[in-house]
């Protein structure tokens, strides 16, 4: 196994985490985590519950101040690189009874570019409609969001990230609670984003699909267990190191 990566480091990595330590109260959730994501890759972030995956996203997006270390996006702090990042939160983090329709939610992806006070207009509507078409949800544009299935809601969120026209996408468990067909559709979309030159970081829960879906993997359990190309670091040894004990999911992986 090579420990030194051979690819030449690009000028600025889409996402670089150096020495990040973060804590809630006195309990550290992330301990001295460092890694660098190369451009144009599909990256899974895996680890058991409480491993600090969501905290890592929070630190990256500047929603939480790390106790030590820093995270940069294309070489800049997040606040200076917002326009380059598309964000897909967990589906359960919003109230789907909110009085609005699918198209409107997708338009929210354009609010950042509009900035304060400017209202979305026809151009934004058209752009949002295009993104809905890309995720195969155009016919649901006017549908009240609570009337959508879980998989459809997830696709709306992805359409919204598409509207952000980002170069780095941060997605928090996009596969949670969706059926097989939707999962495949979402993977297709993530691959499209990558094909268009984007870098996609996915907080992921299903170890069995890691080798199929991703190029690289970050294995976390408060500290960094391993990071690198899936075929190199997604080993039984590393995974059981992170999850503790034997992991039966890994029958096929080695």
């Amino acid at each position: 196994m090579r420990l030194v990566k051979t690819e030449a480091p690009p000028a600025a990595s889409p996402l670089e985490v150096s020495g990040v330590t973060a804590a809630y109260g006195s309990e550290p959730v992330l301990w001295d985590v460092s890694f660098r994501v190369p451009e144009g890759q599909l990256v899974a972030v895996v680890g058991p519950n409480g491993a600090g995956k969501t905290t890592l996203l929070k630190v990256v997006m500047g929603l939480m101040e790390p106790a030590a270390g820093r995270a940069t996006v294309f070489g800049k702090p997040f606040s200076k690189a917002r326009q380059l990042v598309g964000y897909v939160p967990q589906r359960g983090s919003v109230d789907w009874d909110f009085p609005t329709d699918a198209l409107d939610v997708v338009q929210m992806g354009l609010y950042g570019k509009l900035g304060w006070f400017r209202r979305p207009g026809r151009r934004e509507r058209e752009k949002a409609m295009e993104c809905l078409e890309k995720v195969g949800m155009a016919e649901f544009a006017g549908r009240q969001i609570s009337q959508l299935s879980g998989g459809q809601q997830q696709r709306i969120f992805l359409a919204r990230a598409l509207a952000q026209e980002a170069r780095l996408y941060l997605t928090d468990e996009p596969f949670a609670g969706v059926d097989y067909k939707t999962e495949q559709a979402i993977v297709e979309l993530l691959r499209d984003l990558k094909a268009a030159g984007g870098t996609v970081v996915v907080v992921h829960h299903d170890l069995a699909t890691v080798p199929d879906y991703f190029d690289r993997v970050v294995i976390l359990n408060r500290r960094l267990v391993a990071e690198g190309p899936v075929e190199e670091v997604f080993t039984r040894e590393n995974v059981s190191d992170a999850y503790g004990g034997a992991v039966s999911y890994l029958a096929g992986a080695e």
Partner: protein
Amino acid sequence: MSPDLIVVVTAVLVAVPCALLGTFLVLRQMSMMGDAISHAVLPGIVVAFFLSESLGPITSLLGAGAFGLLTAALVEALKNTGRVKEDASIGIVFTALFALGVFLISRFASDVHLDLQHVLYGEIAFSPLNALIVGSVNLGPRSFWTMGIVTAMALVVVLLLYKELKIATFDAGLAAAVGLSPALVHYLLMGAVSVTTVGAFDSVGAVLVVAFLIAPPATAYLLTDKLARMLALSTLLGVASAVLGYYLAASMDVAIAGMMAVVAGGFFSLALLLSPSRGLVANSLRHRRNRRSFSRKLLLARLEALGNRTTEAELCENLGWEAGRVSRALADALRGGLVLKPAAGEVTLTRKGREAATGPQAPVR
């Protein structure tokens, strides 16, 4: 201008900002923050009362509004210690500030006209009596000025920050990620609610203003699926509660602000019962209709399985239903021409019934 009209216009000027801002309180599941702020601004009201002689309505509004912001900040700080949950934080902060207000009134304001009764329940009937006089010029009812400013402020906040309020309310994480600070939006909203509460206390009182903040938006929420329509509808309902409430109170000779809140509550009850999409009546009708078609389909399928000719008693036993449900479902199928009763107690399927029984099983919805 007639005193009647002054009272009604004042009430409308209370209802409009409350409906607009209350919509976001309800959607953010922060209705109780409205309640908390309306009480916690009491010390602000007392201070404003002493200052208003020299400073005029705008300055005192802003000064008192600061107490609302203080409430929001303290609740947030207390919650962030991780030792107290949000509901308890709200309870602790607003009662403490309210108590401070009670203390200030009883200590310093006992000899002027500012009593708790007035603060809590307001007296909109007095609004025609308080004119704003600058120098020796009478500028009209004081409440017009105060609430006019408040209404304009609420309109500016909601129109200018419509998109920001929407994204911060629906998805604070995304709002933060794209740089539209949800914290800033939160405090702006809290500030606006505070100013509105302080402005409104004189007419409807600190307690009843909560009815104007919450009831019209909660009613509108039951009636529409679009945020813009919810804002418009809730404004309309607020205004209707104010106007209707006034004339009902006048005809029955009861407390005006109280009657307005009763009307607002009445609108809510009506919507809860009768809303076409979310009302309880529509819901239970839908439920019954579904249950009926479900029973009918099950009955036909079972009849088919039993060889297409059986007795009502056998069906009863086979389906495990009580006799009433079977005979209701049978009567239903008979009306639809799906079954026949060739002899007493006997049941068979018609051709149409057989098609319905063997046809594709429609999902039960």
